């Protein structure tokens, strides 16, 4: 410990005396660590972001639609026959593994209250159980009832932000609002939900699916999606198989025909996501390692120069009683300090770049302890590995020759 502290002091003097040289030397390490920290930070941030978004959907929720998630066969799937409300009813009536099944149609409409107007607002037509399948509980008022769905009443539930913008401090429940010019009675306002994949979940209005069919017939082109909540979260696979076989029957598919619908689950997206980020992590590791390797060679080079320049100093130290090991420690420490400076600079630079990028993209970044440890750890390791050879060279110098060196 005693020597380590002394060696650190000596190294700091030498490093600060050759500022430019030290800086250029540690630049390589810095770039390597910056790469690792930056990419890791963005990847972790993005993953966190997506997982957070998805968690608002609920893990035992199943989505049935024309398109499958995490698949790129979009062109083929486009030709599939749309799902129908009848499909949803069939699943609901024949599966005992599902708690709720709600068909829904997504569309757009214009919303007007007094002189305030919002255009192209997301409009959802659905049934009463959508409250549970989409975790859309009202913060004031209520969701609609099955009777209201059957009747096709002119009632609406507002997203939190719409209520805010249109009504401010007034309670919207009990007021009338115009959707595409037609009066709707407001029965509830949803809790704040935030964003999901860039679309604002608080900027939507929900009406009974029957009402949507009646007054917003243009919406039917998009087809029906079905969201369902499984009764037993531990039996998700079984539940999904059950839905698949029911739908095949209901849609009259022959045994040799492929499914013309997709049963999706959040975990599918997560799996897909993990595949992508896993690949990116490996890529990042390779790039980071390469630049650390290059940086390490730079360190080794400069340490060799340093040993040569200080041959006489090494000789003097040996004459005054420094053992081989002490000389070795001194030079390895110098290399490690140089590298860890690079590592710290890289951590700061990496997070800065990540923060900068996240400031004008929706991607968040994450300052994780793990990546800091990786950054410092790797740069220290590089310091030890690439500093060892020059340090050993210094340690093995013959004191007589070293003293005579000019």
């Amino acid at each position, binding site marked *: 410990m*005693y*020597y380590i502290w*002394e060696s650190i002091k000596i190294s700091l*003097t*030498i490093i600060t*005396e050759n500022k430019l040289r030290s800086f250029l030397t540690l630049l390589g390490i810095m770039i390597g660590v910056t790469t690792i920290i930056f990419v890791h930070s963005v990847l972790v941030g993005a993953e966190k972001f997506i997982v957070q978004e998805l968690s608002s959907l609920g893990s035992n929720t199943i989505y049935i639609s024309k398109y499958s998630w995490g698949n790129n066969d979009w062109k083929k799937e486009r030709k599939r026959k749309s799902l129908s409300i009848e499909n949803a009813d069939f699943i609901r009536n024949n599966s005992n593994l599902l708690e709720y099944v709600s068909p829904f149609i997504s569309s757009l409409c214009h919303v007007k209250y007094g002189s305030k107007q919002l255009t192209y607002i997301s409009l959802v037509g659905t049934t009463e159980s959508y409250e549970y399948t989409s975790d859309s509980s009202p913060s004031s008022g209520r969701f609609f009832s099955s009777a209201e769905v059957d009747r096709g009443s002119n009632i609406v539930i507002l997203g939190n932000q719409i209520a805010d913008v249109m009504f401010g401090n007034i309670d919207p429940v009990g007021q009338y609002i115009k959707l595409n010019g037609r009066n709707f009675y407001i029965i509830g306002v949803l809790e704040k939900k935030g964003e999901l994949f860039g679309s604002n979940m608080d900027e939507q209005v929900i009406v009974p699916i029957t009402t949507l069919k009646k007054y917003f017939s243009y919406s039917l082109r998009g087809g029906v999606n079905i969201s369902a909540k499984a009764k037993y979260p531990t039996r998700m696979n079984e539940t999904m198989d059950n839905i698949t076989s029911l739908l095949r029957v209901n849609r009259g598919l022959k045994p040799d025909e492929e499914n013309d619908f997709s049963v999706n689950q959040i975990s599918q997206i997560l799996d897909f996501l993990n595949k992508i980020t896993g690949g990116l992590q490996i890529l990042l590791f390779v790039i980071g390692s390469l630049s650390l390797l290059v940086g390490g060679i730079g360190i080794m080079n400069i340490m060799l120069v340093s040993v040569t320049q200080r041959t*006489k*100093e090494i*000789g*003097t*130290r*040996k*004459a*005054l*009683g*420094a*053992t*081989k*090991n*002490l000389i070795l420690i001194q030079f390895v420490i110098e290399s490690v300090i140089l590298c860890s400076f690079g590592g710290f600079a890289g951590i700061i630079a990496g997070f800065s770049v990540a923060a900068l990028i996240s400031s004008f993209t929706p991607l968040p970044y994450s300052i994780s302890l793990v990546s800091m440890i990786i950054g410092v750890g790797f740069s220290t390791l590089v310091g030890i590995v690439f500093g060892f050879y020059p340090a050993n060279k210094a340690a093995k110098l013959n*004191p*007589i020759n070293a*003293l005579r060196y000019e």
Partner: protein
Amino acid sequence: MEENLIKIENIRKTYTPGKEKIHALDGISLDIKKGEYIAIMGASGSGKSTLMNIIGCLDVATSGKYYLNKHNVESLNDNELATIRNKEIGFVFQTFNLLARSTALHNVELPLIYSKVSSSQRKERSIAALKKVGLGDRMMHKPNELSGGQKQRVAVARALINDPSIILADEPTGNLDSKTSIDIMNLFNELHEEGNTIIVVTHEPDIAEFAKRVIHLKDGKIEQDYLNGLVTK
């Protein structure tokens, strides 16, 4: 009868740089008592540097025996030699060999770092050593801010700091003008009078005159070994 501080018996050192063997030291035997002041003289190639390196434990002899303060130097490994150099020998070099980046104080402290003395004690002892060589007001100066004579005084303070058995000076005045040389040699005289054992390697007869005993080397052998009859100035 005083005990021998250094006992050298029939030491040989041979190098084989090319095809032929070179006998740098060809059977040297030498006893040095505590408190002696010795000058080792000789032309270049006489073997005086090789002898100094062996006495200074920087090198080991090819054959023969060397006892320094009862340590059998021949049997020591590299680390033990380093410890002996640290504790028993104070080096003074022709080119001063101070660490350019460090203050006079830190340069003097250096041997104490290698003998694990605590930093407060190190400082205390180094200040005392620098005052002793007359540099109490130059402690925080770096070597490039000091004159040649002052640099060599720092080196002498560094040599003294660990209270060594011998002070080994290799051409200590080689890079100094004649006036400064005399100053430095007077400093060695003082140290000698205080009871230190001093060995000066030099090729200048004027410098050798300061010593009490002169050993002349020629072709790796002791040619003459006599006491200086002249009274030091």
